[in-house]
């Protein structure tokens, strides 16, 4: 068993239960690591030191009395998109710089009820709009594998924190790849569950038909544990699905013999860097060795997923972000001369460049005369993509391929050209459009940078996706690699 900070969340729980260390000691260890590396990584927006230490002491009393839940005493970080009662919740935006949430997101409340101790709130692309964590009002997050590179996004703070072992696990959200893409670029494990599996209540809305909360961790077993505690029906979210949550941990060990793995033909195209492709092909050979049968499948409409996404997501974003009006909460401009001026300047000042770009794209595609041509058209093509996936899952159990076309790229390299940035999510967006569960796990390195392998399953097959990903981690040790300087 490893000691912190190398230990997995599951190992930390065992250590707490065996009294090898206390929760207070554990939390102090991680807080010190955050202090030590925050300057280099900028992974956190807020660190909730006092509350964390108080909660850890309370957890120690519960553990001493022989009680506790599945996560009692283990530290975790929350993406700053989740509302935390009494704690600033910024969503990476100047608009919410002064917003102290009056309530907890369901995800936060559930993880607290399971005993987890919050270390702080992680940095992210503003309103989760980005693929590099560069659009944050609080400055870019840096990749622990190379500080000149982006960690991916939008959950880049959570991914960098987990990769650098500043937290054993972190919550995250995924609208077009925002869990899986940073997981790939930072060499950690991430899962986005089926749409509706985890409550969106208290999670600042970006694109409501695509947003879904999930987990970043160092192992699949840890992701299974945290997801089990986060998931479940919530009457406060009208899209929450009322279905029992399986014990993902108990279902991790499944033999892969006879597993039908689909290779998406469209994922192995020109956009995929040859060295990345090689790592993915190597991983597929490992699956063959574990007894899986590989077959090529084609989802002919999948390449249209990026243009579909850049209609649907901005449209929903422009509706959701209409609530930021400078009246009830959030940034308000100085000396508004009338109500329109108050709206326009509060929003103009409070939102950053990419958020404004998406609000305007969405406003345009929803405006009179364009709704049919853009929004309705995109939702029709989305139905075709969804049908492609459903057809594929009639002949295969999971789809496996790359998470991203390339490893991490330099900070600033793609900020001038929004579409180059958008194409980062070319392999991840499909699962969001179709609401499917999907994970990314480390599967090797290209030029000393981690590469992610993506596993996509049918609706509500999180247990299968996790078991397939777990089998890979039983057979390889890529997920145990820690970036230099953070061991």
């Amino acid at each position, binding site marked *: 068993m490893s000691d912190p900070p190398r230990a997995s969340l599951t190992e930390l729980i065992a250590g707490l239960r065996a009294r090898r260390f206390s929760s207070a000691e554990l939390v102090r260890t991680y807080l010190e690591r955050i202090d030590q590396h925050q300057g280099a990584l900028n992974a956190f927006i807020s660190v909730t030191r006092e509350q964390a230490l108080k909660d850890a002491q309370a957890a120690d009393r519960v553990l001493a009395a022989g009680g506790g839940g599945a996560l009692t005493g283990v530290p975790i970080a929350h993406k700053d998109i989740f509302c935390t009662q009494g704690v600033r919740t910024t969503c990476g935006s100047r608009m919410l710089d002064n917003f102290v949430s009056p309530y907890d997101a369901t995800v936060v409340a559930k993880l607290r009820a399971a005993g987890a101790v919050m270390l702080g709130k992680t940095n992210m692309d503003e309103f989760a709009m980005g693929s590099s964590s560069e659009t944050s009002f609080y400055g870019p997050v840096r990749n622990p594998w190379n500080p000149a590179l982006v960690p991916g996004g939008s959950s880049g703070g959570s991914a960098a924190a987990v990769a650098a072992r500043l937290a054993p696990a972190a919550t995250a959200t995924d609208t077009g790849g925002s869990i899986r893409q940073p997981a790939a670029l930072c060499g950690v494990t991430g899962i986005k569950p089926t749409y509706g599996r985890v409550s969106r209540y208290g999670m600042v809305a970006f694109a409501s038909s695509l947003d879904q909360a999930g987990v970043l961790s160092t192992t699949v077993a840890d992701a299974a544990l945290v997801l089990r505690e986060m998931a479940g029906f919530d009457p406060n979210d009208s899209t929450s699905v009322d279905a029992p949550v399986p014990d993902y941990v108990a279902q991790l060990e499944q033999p892969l013999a006879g597993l039908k793995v689909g290779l998406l033909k469209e994922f192995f195209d020109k956009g995929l860097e040859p060295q990345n492709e090689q790592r993915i092909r190597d991983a597929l050979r490992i699956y063959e060795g574990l007894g899986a049968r590989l077959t090529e499948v084609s989802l002919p409409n999948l390449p249209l997923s990026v*243009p579909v996404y850049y209609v649907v997501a901005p449209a929903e974003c422009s509706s959701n972000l209409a609530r930021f009006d400078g009246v009830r909460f959030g940034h308000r401009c100085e000396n508004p001369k009338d109500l329109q001026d108050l709206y*326009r300047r509060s*929003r103009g000042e409070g939102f950053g460049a990419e958020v404004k770009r998406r609000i305007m794209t969405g406003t345009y595609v929803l405006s009179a005369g364009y709704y049919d041509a853009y929004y309705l058209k995109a939702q029709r093509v989305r139905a*075709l993509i969804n049908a492609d996936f459903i057809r594929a899952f009639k002949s295969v159990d999971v789809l496996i391929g790359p998470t991203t076309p390339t490893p991490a790229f330099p900070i600033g390299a793609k900020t001038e050209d929004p579409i180059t940035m958008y194409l980062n999510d070319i392999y991840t967006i499909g699962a969001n459009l179709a609401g499917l569960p999907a994970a990314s796990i480390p599967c090797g390195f290209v030029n000393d940078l981690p590469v992610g392998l993506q596993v996509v399953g049918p609706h509500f097959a999180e247990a299968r996706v996790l078991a397939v990903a777990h089998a890979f981690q039983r057979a390889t040790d890529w997920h145990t690699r820690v970036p230099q300087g953070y061991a």
Partner: protein
Amino acid sequence: MYDFALVFSVHRAYREPPMSLTRAQLASIATLARLDLSAAEIPVYQQSLSSILDFIGALDAVDTADVNPMAHPLPGLSQRLRADVVTESDHHEAYQANAPQVAAGLYLVPKVIE
């Protein structure tokens, strides 16, 4: 039929977008979106929104004549309704703690009616 080469070729072509938003069109979008833009921002957004519209224009080529638009990410599901009963208690003080300006339990805004 469609492949990433198509998407990437659209991307390559977009540097000189055939469809270009005028300054007036961009200003009207900003008005609808209630966004104040600086003089420096307008040409930047004119260019990038034109590129994005060109990029999403790839969807025009798809035949969707017999396809219903997707209304929910999970096939066959629709939004759940709850019983029409009061479930919330009064949180106005907690919520208004985040408001820029309140008085007597009311949100204050500039005068709307002269």
